[in-house]
């Protein structure tokens, strides 16, 4: 099993979610995060004092899936999250050793 972790632009979340559903992904977990990267942040000004805010709002998607699904998942995310502009984000793939469904105690692929 693998965990696919993707950092994307928030406004693409719906599209990515839809795409993933279409390739058969039944579950995922989303976290609001702030990203630092090549994409510049923004300036804010309060009573003449300027603040450079380096962090940009992003959404992290985590999907644990069978290794066989990883390629599909990555492709969908790439297709649906890409705007072509800096800051589109990253996909990371990590190993997962076990998965358990709390409700039933099922493990492995069955748990997803």
């Amino acid at each position, binding site marked *: 099993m693998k965990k696919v972790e993707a950092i994307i632009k928030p406004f693409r979340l*719906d599209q990515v979610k839809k795409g993933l559903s279409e390739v058969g992904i039944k579950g995922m977990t989303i976290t609001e995060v702030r990203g630092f990267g090549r994409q510049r942040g923004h300036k804010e*000004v309060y009573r003449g004092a300027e603040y450079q805010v380096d962090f940009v709002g992003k959404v992290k998607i985590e999907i644990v899936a069978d290794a066989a699904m990883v390629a599909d998942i990555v492709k969908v995310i790439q297709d649906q999250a890409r705007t072509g502009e800096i800051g589109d984000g990253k996909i990371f793939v990590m190993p997962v050793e076990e998965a358990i469904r709390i409700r039933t105690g099922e493990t492995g692929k069955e748990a997803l």
Partner: protein
Amino acid sequence: MDTGDTTFILICSALVMLMTIGLALFYAGMVRSKNALGTIMQSFIIIALISLEWILWGYSMAFGPDKWGIIGGLEWFGLRGVGMEPHTVYATTIPHQVFMIYQCMFAVITPALITGAFAERMRFGPFLLFSLLWATFVYNPLAHWIWGAGGWLGRMGALDFAGGVAVHVSSGVAALAAAILLGKREGYGSEELRPHNLPMTLLGAGLLWFGWFGFNAGSALTAGSLAGSAFVATHVAGTTGALSWIGMEWRITGKATTLGGASGAIAGLATVTPAAGFVGPISAAFIGVLAGVGCYLGIMAKNRFGYDDSLDVVGIHGVGGVIGLLVTGLLANAAINPAGADGLFFGNPGQLGIQCIAILVTVVYTFALSYLLLKLVDKIFGLRVDLRDERSGLDLTQHEETAYNI
């Protein structure tokens, strides 16, 4: 001069001023959080911008010496001649400037109402310019026609106690023009454009309701029976507006919503505005019910016709204003207000015709002028933020601020 009346109108002026603050919150709670400040700012800065316009030329255009029934002259530019002695026609028991500042607050809130239609997508500079032009060329003439001494709608006998023509119908129709001309927000219909802070919206609605007593009862301009009657009618219509709106919701979607309660109250208050000083409490209750049902359907219309009137200015103020002016033609009762007239139900069918003319004229004039002014500003400066800015939100791109760091 009367200290009671002067107190009354001074406090009512403050109350109406507070309405625009209430409106800022009412609207801002409904947008996404990235546009919260931009939305508040549109109402807030209009208080400043239009008040200045008003003391410079607005008051003179609306209430100054009449020219051909169509506009006030600029004799009172910069409040020249608008002093502390009571005016001989307007509000004769209070200082003239007090009447002027009370009217100022009406001139302020009207363009602020429109901002709901183009929420989340207008550039700040062009917005300022449009508001200034609109106040000058739409609000001022309309106010003169209906309330200015010698204004032709008023002389024709059109009844509009506290702002059906100049405030609600005009802002609702301008909203329609703006919604059409600016087009939809990105994601409209597909993405979740959910309110970001409904408690703020409810607070705004509360302040609006509170201030509306100043708006409608204050329009009696003296603290007596008429003010009392208008106060009661206002409260009752807000009440039945809220109840009938959530009743509609309950029937149609199975649940009453908080936003619905607030929207219905505002609908009731807006709708009773032109009628407030001409009807008794039971008529007002009836008007509120019409408002709740009518404006709810008005809002649904948006989905049918497909324009993005973001915060439902057309559905609430446009529809409400029209209903209000119409029912004034039905339910007005000269026994409540001898300075008014009877409506159809009290034996005077002609009044309904007059009200229809007033509505028609307001709709046509406002739509034409608003569209023109919007188009003009759009051509020269561009009204709409570009897509990237729309995505980032008005707060960051127009004002370089964020609403919340919680």
